[in-house]
C-alpha cells in the first residue's frame, strides 16, 4: 500500500467499492435467510394455530425489518456507483452487464419492496392467507434478486454470451441465455443462498440462546432454536457441496484464482492444502503448518492426483496471451481470505452442532459461558461471507472482467481525486454511524423478546373497527 497522499482515483474507487459492497453484503444474507424463516414461522402459525408461532413471527419479523432497511438503502449505492466511479467499465460492459441489473429491478426488487410494505402494514388490512402470501413474495423476490446479481457478477468472473466489438470498443450481448446460465452463476447462486441460511440460522441460534440463558419465553424460542439449528446445518452441508462445485468451476474458468487460494507457485500433481502457513507467501520461504496431502487437487479437479496449475506457469501463459504484465492477484490476501471463509463457516456449523447436542430433548446447558460463547459465534458467518467475497473479487485481479478488461482501465477517466474522496469518506462515515445504530437496535429488540400472546393476537386479524388503533404504525 502506498502513502495515503499518493492515493489516486483508482485506489479510492476500489476502496469505496470494497467498503460499500462488503457492508451491503452484511445485510443481504440476513435478509435472504430471515425472510424465509419468518415466512416459515408465519406458515406454521397459520397451519397449527399455535400462538407461540405467531409471537415468533412478530419477534423475528421485527428483527428482519431492522436488517432489511439497511440492505435496501445500501443497495441503491451499488447500482449507482458503477456509473459514478467506473464509467469506462460501464461503457465497455453495459450491453451485457446492464440487462441482468435491469431484470433484477423489474422482476425481483419491485416485488420485494412493494410486498414488504404490504406485509408490514397489512396485518389488519388483509385476509390472513393474502398477508402470508406477501412475506413469501418478499422471500421469493430476494432469491430472484440474488440470482440476477450473481449472473451479472459471474460475467466478470467468466465472460460468456458476448462478442467483442472492436470498433465500438465494447462487449456486446450475443446470448442472454448464456449470461443467465453462466456455470459460475449456477454454482455461485446455491453457494450464496446456503451461506444466507447459515447466517440467518446462526443469528436465530444466538438470539434464541440469549433467551434460553434467561429461561424466558421458551415456548417461543425453543421451536425457533430448532429451526435455527436446522437452517444452519442445512446451510453448512449445502455450502460444502456447492463450494466443491464452485471450486471446480473456478479451476476451469479462473485457474489463477485457485492457485492463488493456495499460494501454489509450481504446477503440481497431488497438490496439498495447507491449513496455515507461517513465513512469507511469495513462494520462497513459506512453511505450511498442517498440510492435507492431495486435498487441493481434489478441490480443484475431483481427483487427489489431479494437476493444479501453479501461479508461475499461469503467469507465463497469460503473458503470452495478453502481453507483458503481472497476472497474479495479491497472494497473501487470497490465501488468507480463502481460509477465513472456510474456517469461520466451519466454526458456525460446529457451534450449531454443539448447541443441538446440548439442547437435545429439552436439555439445558448449565455452564455460565455456554450461551455467551454461542452468541458471540453469530459473528462468524459475517466474517466468512465477507472473506468469501473479498476472495472472489480480489482473486480476479488484475481483471475487472476476467481476460477482457483490466481494473485499471475501468475507472471513470474524468472524475478527480477530491470527488471520489468526498464520496468514499462520506459513505464510510454514514455507514459507520448506521452500523452502530442498526446493531444497537437489533440487540435492543432481540433482548426485548416477543410480544405477549394477547398483544400478538390483537393486531393479527383484519379489522374494520374505525376506532381501533392501527395494527402497525411507523
Amino acid at each position, binding site marked *: 500500500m502506498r502513502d495515503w497522499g499518493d492515493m489516486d482515483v483508482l485506489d479510492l474507487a476500489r476502496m469505496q467499492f470494497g467498503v460499500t459492497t462488503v457492508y451491503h453484503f452484511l445485510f443481504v444474507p440476513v435478509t435472504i435467510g430471515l425472510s424465509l424463516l419468518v415466512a416459515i414461522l408465519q406458515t406454521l402459525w397459520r397451519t397449527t394455530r399455535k400462538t407461540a408461532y405467531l409471537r415468533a413471527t412478530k419477534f423475528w419479523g421485527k428483527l428482519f425489518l431492522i436488517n432489511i432497511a439497511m440492505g435496501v438503502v445500501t443497495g441503491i449505492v451499488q447500482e449507482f456507483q458503477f456509473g459514478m466511479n467506473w464509467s469506462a467499465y460501464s461503457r465497455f460492459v453495459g450491453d451485457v452487464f446492464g440487462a441482468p441489473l435491469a431484470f433484477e429491478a423489474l422482476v425481483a426488487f419491485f416485488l420485494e419492496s412493494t410486498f414488504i410494505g*404490504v406485509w408490514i402494514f397489512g396485518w389488519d388490512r388483509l385476509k390472513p392467507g393474502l398477508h402470508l402470501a406477501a412475506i413469501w413474495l418478499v422471500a421469493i423476490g430476494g432469491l430472484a434478486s440474488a440470482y440476477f446479481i450473481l449472473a451479472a457478477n459471474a460475467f466478470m468472473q467468466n465472460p460468456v454470451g458476448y462478442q467483442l466489438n472492436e470498433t465500438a470498443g465494447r462487449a456486446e450481448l450475443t446470448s442472454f441465455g448464456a449470461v443467465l446460465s453462466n456455470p459460475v452463476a449456477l454454482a455461485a447462486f446455491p453457494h450464496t443462498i446456503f451461506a444466507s441460511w447459515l447466517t440467518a440460522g446462526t443469528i436465530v441460534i444466538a438470539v434464541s440462546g440469549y433467551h434460553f440463558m434467561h429461561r424466558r419465553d421458551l415456548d417461543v424460542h425453543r421451536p425457533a432454536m430448532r429451526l435455527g439449528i436446522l437452517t444452519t446445518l442445512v446451510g453448512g452441508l449445502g455450502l460444502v457441496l456447492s463450494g466443491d462445485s464452485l471450486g471446480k468451476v473456478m479451476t476451469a474458468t479462473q485457474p489463477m484464482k485457485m492457485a492463488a487460494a493456495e499460494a501454489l507457485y509450481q504446477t503440481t500433481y497431488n497438490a496439498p492444502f495447507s491449513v496455515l502457513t507461517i513465513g512469507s507467501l511469495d513462494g520462497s520461504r513459506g512453511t505450511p503448518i498442517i498440510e492435507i496431502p492431495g486435498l487441493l487437487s481434489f478441490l480443484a479437479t475431483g481427483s487427489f492426483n489431479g494437476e493444479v496449475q501453479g501461479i508461475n506457469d499461469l503467469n507465463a501463459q497469460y503473458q503470452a496471451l495478453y502481453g507483458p504484465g503481472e497476472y497474479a492477484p495479491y497472494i497473501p490476501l487470497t490465501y488468507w481470505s480463502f481460509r477465513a471463509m472456510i474456517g469461520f463457516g466451519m466454526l458456525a456449523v460446529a457451534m450449531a452442532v454443539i448447541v443441538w447436542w446440548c439442547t437435545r430433548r429439552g436439555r439445558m446447558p448449565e455452564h455460565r459461558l455456554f450461551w455467551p460463547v454461542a452468541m458471540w459465534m453469530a459473528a462468524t458467518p459475517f466474517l466468512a461471507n465477507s472473506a468469501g467475497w473479498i476472495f472472489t473479487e480480489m482473486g480476479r485481479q488484475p481483471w475487472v472482467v476476467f481476460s477482457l478488461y483490466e481494473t485499471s482501465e475501468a475507472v471513470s477517466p474524468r472524475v478527480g481525486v477530491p470527488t471520489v474522496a468526498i464520496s468514499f469518506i462520506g459513505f464510510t462515515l454514514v455507514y459507520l454511524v448506521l452500523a452502530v445504530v442498526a446493531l444497537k437496535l437489533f440487540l435492543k429488540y432481540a433482548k426485548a423478546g416477543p410480544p405477549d400472546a394477547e398483544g400478538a393476537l390483537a393486531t393479527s386479524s383484519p379489522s374494520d373497527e374505525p376506532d381501533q388503533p392501527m395494527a402497525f404504525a411507523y
Partner: protein
Amino acid sequence: MDLTTIWFIAIAVLFTGYFILEGFDFGVGMLLPVLGREERERRALINTIGPVWDGNEVWVITAGGAMFAAFPHWYASLFSGFYLLLFAILVGLIVRGTAFEYRGKGDTDRWRRNWDRCLIAGSAVPAFCWGVVVANLVRGVPLDANFDYTGSIWGLLNGYALLGGLTTLLLFATHGAYFLHLRTTGDLAERARATGLRLGAATAVPALAFLVWTQAAHGNWTTLVLIVLAVMALLAGLALDYTGRGGWAFAATALTIGLASAALFCALWPNVLPSTSDAANSLTHENAAATQKTLGIMTWAAVIFLPLILLYQGWTYWVFRQRVIVERIPVA
C-alpha cells in the same frame, strides 16, 4: 418505431413515474416540521406513505438499471459527470429510508428528533437535486470525444439548473401537501390544504420561469403544448385545493409533474445528453444505445413485467386507501 426510440420513451416514463410517486413521498417528508405539530401528528404524516414509499423508490432503481442496459453511454456519462449531485441524492435516500424504519423503534425524543431531521433533509436534498440533474440534462454539459463530462460540480450549479431544482423542490412539496389533504382527516387535513395552497402559489412563480426558460432555450411545438398544459394543471390544482377537493388537486399536481417531465424529455430528444463544447460529442438515443439484441430482450421484459408491476403496486394503493386518522395512531 425503432427500439432506441422506444427505450428513450421507456426511460422517460420510468423517471416520470418516479417523480410523480416519490414526489409526494418527498413532499410529505419535507412537510413533517410544518404540519406535524406533535408526535402523533408526525407519525400520522409518516404513516400516510409508510406502506408505499419503498415501492415508489424502486422506480428510480429500475430507471437506473434500464438506462445502464439500454443506453450504457448515457448511464456512464450522466452518473460519472453528475457525480456529486448523485452522491448527495444517495446519502439523502440512505438516511431517509433508514429513518422510516428506525424512527419509531427508539425511546427518546432526541432519537425521534434526529431521525426527523434525516427524514426532512433526506427528502428535501434529493427533491432539489433531481431538478438540478434533469435541468442539466436538457441544457447540456461539455463532453469530450469519449462522452465524458469535462467540467466540475460548479458547472452543474448554473442558474437554469438551480431554478429547476427550486421548481422540483417546491412542486414536490405542493404535491405532498395535496396528498396529505387527501390522505388525512380533520384539522390535519385542513392545515395540509391551507399549506398546499400557499405552497402551490409559491411554486407557480419558479415553475413558470423555469418552464418558460426551457421553452425559450430548448423548446419546440410539442414542448410548448406540454408546458402550457403543465402550467394549466398546476393552476387547476391550486383552484381544486382551494375548493377542498384534495383528491383532484393531487391528481392535478401528478399531471403537472407528468407533463413537465414529458416536456423536458421532449426538449432533450433526440439527444440524451447534449454536449455544449462540441455538438459532435453529443450523446443521442442512437450513439448512446445498446445493441438491438439487448434492447429487444429488455423490451420483452418490460412488456411482460411493467403491466404486472403497475397492477400490484396499484393494488397496494387500493389496500391502504383508508385515510390515516391521528387518533388511530397507537400511543408510543
